[in-house]
C-alpha cells in the first residue's frame, strides 16, 4: 500500500515510515531522548532528501517526546522550572545556530562539519557514559551499593553565583551552567537538526547532578520545545516539513514510545545508561565509517532552488 508524500515528491510503502517511527519511538521512550539523531540519518538512507528528512524528523520528534513528557508530568518526574529555563536558553542558542548554519553552508563544507560534530560529540558522550555505567553495573553485580554522589559536593559549578532552587529536582544550583547548557544544545540542534537529548541527558546527569528519574522527563520537555521551534523554522525558511511523512512516523512512534517506556521501567538506571552509551557509540562508529570509507557514489547531487 503506497502513500504519496506531497513535499518529498515521492511515494512510499506505508509500512516503512510506520516501522521507522516505531523503531525510533522505542529508543525515544527507553532513553528519554527525542530520537532526532536516529530518524534523520534513517530517512536520508531511505532516499528522502536531507532537508526534508531534517524538517519532518523534527516534527516527529515533537510527538514522541511530548508523549513521554505528558507521562512524566503526570508522574511528577518533570522539573518544569528547569525545563523552561533550558528551553528558553535553547531558543536563544537556536537563533545563533541558524546564522552559524548559513555561514557553514557558504563555506561549502556543511556536510563535513555536521558529520564531524556528530562523530565527535556522540563519540565523547558515548565513551564517558559507557565508562561510568560499566563501573556502576559492575558494582551492582558485586552487590555493592550504587555509588552515591552527594550532588555537587566538590563541583566547581557549585561556586558560581545566581543560585536558584529547583524543588522537583531537589537542587540548589547556579543558573549559569543551566543557561549555558541550554544555549549550547540550542546551537547544536539548529546546526545538526536534532533536539539534543542525547547530549542533554548525560549533561544533566553528570554536570548538573539532576536525579536520573527527573532527567528523562525534563529532557523530553526541553526536546519537544526545541523541536517545535525547529519545525516552524524549517517550514518557514525551507518549506521542508512533509506533514504526511511526519504523521506516519508519529503514528508508528506512539507504539514504539509506549513499548520503550515499558522496557525502560524494568531496567535499572545504570543498565539503561549503559545501553544508551552503546547505542550512541554505534551511531558514532557508523557515521565515522561514512567519513573514512570510500563511498559507493563518488558524486553528490545538490539541487539548486528555483531551477
Amino acid at each position, binding site marked *: 500500500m503506497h502513500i504519496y508524500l506531497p513535499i518529498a515528491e515521492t511515494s512510499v510503502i506505508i509500512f516503512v515510515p510506520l516501522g521507522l517511527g516505531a523503531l525510533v519511538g522505542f529508543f525515544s521512550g527507553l532513553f528519554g531522548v527525542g530520537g532526532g539523531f536516529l530518524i534523520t540519518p534513517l530517512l536520508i538512507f531511505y532516499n528522502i532528501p536531507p532537508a526534508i528528512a531534517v524538517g519532518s524528523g523534527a516534527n516527529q520528534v515533537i510527538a514522541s517526546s511530548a508523549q513521554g513528557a*505528558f507521562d512524566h508530568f503526570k508522574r511528577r518526574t518533570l522539573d518544569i522550572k528547569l525545563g523552561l529555563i533550558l528551553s528558553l536558553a535553547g531558543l536563544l542558542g537556536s537563533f545563533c545556530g541558524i546564522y552559524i548554519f548559513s555561514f557553514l553552508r557558504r563555506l561549502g563544507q556543511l556536510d563535513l562539519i555536521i558529520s564531524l560534530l556528530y562523530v565527535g560529540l556522540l563519540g565523547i558522550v558515548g565513551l564517558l557514559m559507557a565508562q561510568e555505567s560499566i563501573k556502576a553495573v559492575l558494582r551492582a553485580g558485586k552487590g555493592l551499593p550504587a555509588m552515591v554522589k552527594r550532588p555537587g559536593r566538590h563541583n566547581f559549578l557549585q561556586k558560581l553565583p545566581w543560585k536558584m532552587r529547583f524543588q522537583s529536582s531537589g537542587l540548589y544550583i547556579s543558573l549559569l551552567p543551566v543557561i549555558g547548557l541550554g544555549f549550547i544544545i540550542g546551537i547544536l540542534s539548529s546546526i545538526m537538526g536534532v533536539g539534543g537529548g542525547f547530549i542533554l541527558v548525560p549533561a544533566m546527569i553528570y554536570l548538573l547532578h539532576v536525579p536520573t528519574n527527573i532527567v528523562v522527563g525534563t529532557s523530553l520537555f526541553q526536546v519537544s520545545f526545541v523541536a517545535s521551534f525547529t519545525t516552524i523554522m524549517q517550514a518557514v525558511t525551507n518549506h521542508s516539513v512533509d506533514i504526511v511523512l511526519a504523521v506516519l512516523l*508519529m503514528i508508528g512512534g506512539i507504539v514504539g514510545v509506549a513499548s520503550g517506556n515499558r522496557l525502560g521501567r524494568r531496567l535499572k538506571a545504570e543498565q539503561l545508561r549503559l545501553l544508551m552509551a552503546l547505542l550512541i557509540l554505534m551511531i558514532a562508529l557508523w557515521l565515522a565509517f561514512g567519513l573514512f570509507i570510500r563511498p559507493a557514489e563518488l558524486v553528490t*547531487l545538490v539541487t539548486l532552488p528555483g531551477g
Partner: protein
Amino acid sequence: MMFLVQAGSICLSCLAAFQRSKKLLAACRRKYCRLAVIAAPVFIAFIGLPTAQAQEEPSNTPQETLQIIVTARDITIDANFAGTDFYIAGVLENTDPLLRRQNRYDIIVVLEGPQQNIVLYKKERRLGLWLNGSSVKFTNVPQFYALASTRELRDITVPQTYQSLGLGLNYLPLHAKGRLSPEAIKLYKSELIALKQKQGLYGQETGSIAFGSTRLFSARFHLPDNVPVGPYTVKAYLFRDGVYSDEAATGLEITRKNIAYSLYHAAQTQSFRYGLAAVLIAIFIGFIGRTIFPK
C-alpha cells in the same frame, strides 16, 4: 483508488480504440485493395506523370510524417499514487507499405520532465576523509528522461544523427558551467546520468513501442513513484532506413491533485501556519499516544 480505476479505464479505452482502428484499417485494405490496383495507374496517368517529370529523383513517394497524441493532458498525483503506466499514441502517414512491412521504419519517443539547475560535487579524499571536492554546475537538467524505441538505439541510426538531434542518454545536451576540461565535464555528465538512472528517473527502453497496425503505434512509459511534478514534453522521431525523416512534439503536465495539492500549496504559501499546524498535530498525537497507552 479512484485514480487507479481512472488510469485503468483510460488504458482500456486506449486499447479498445486501437483494436477498432486496426479492424477498420484491415477492412479498408481488403475492400479497396482491388479498387486501388485498378485505380492507381489511371491516377498516376492523370496526376502522377507531370510530377514525376518535374522530379528528377527516382522515388516519388511523398515524405512520410508522424503525429502523436497524449491520451490525457494532465496526469494527476493523488495521495495513493504509486507510479503508473502512461501511453502515447501516434500515427504514421505516407509511409511506404513495403518498407513498413520489412520493419525499416523506426520510431523513438522521448518523455522529458521539468528542468532544474544542479550542482554535482565530486567526493575526494583529503587527510583520510571523504569530502565534497571540486564541483560543476549543470543548468536546465531534465529531472526526468525516458526514451522508448522500436529497436536498440545502435541498430536504428548512426551516432552522428543522435548527436545532432541530442537524442538518447549518451547524447543528452547538458550544459555545464565552470572552467573544466571537456573530458572532466564528460565524466561528470556520465556520473550524473548514472545517478539519475539509479534513482529510476532516467531510462531507455527498447521494444516499448507497439504497432497497432501498419500506421498506428503506441509508446508505453512507466512513471515511477518518485516522478517529479511539472511540465513535460513528448517528442517522437521517425527514421526511415536509419535516416531521420520527421519529428512531432506535444506536451503534458504532471500535477498533484486533491489533498496532495492542498498540502503542498499550504506549505508553500502559508508556511508559518503550516508549520504551526504541524507542531500542534504532533503534540496532539503525542497526547493521544499517552492516552492510549497509560502507565
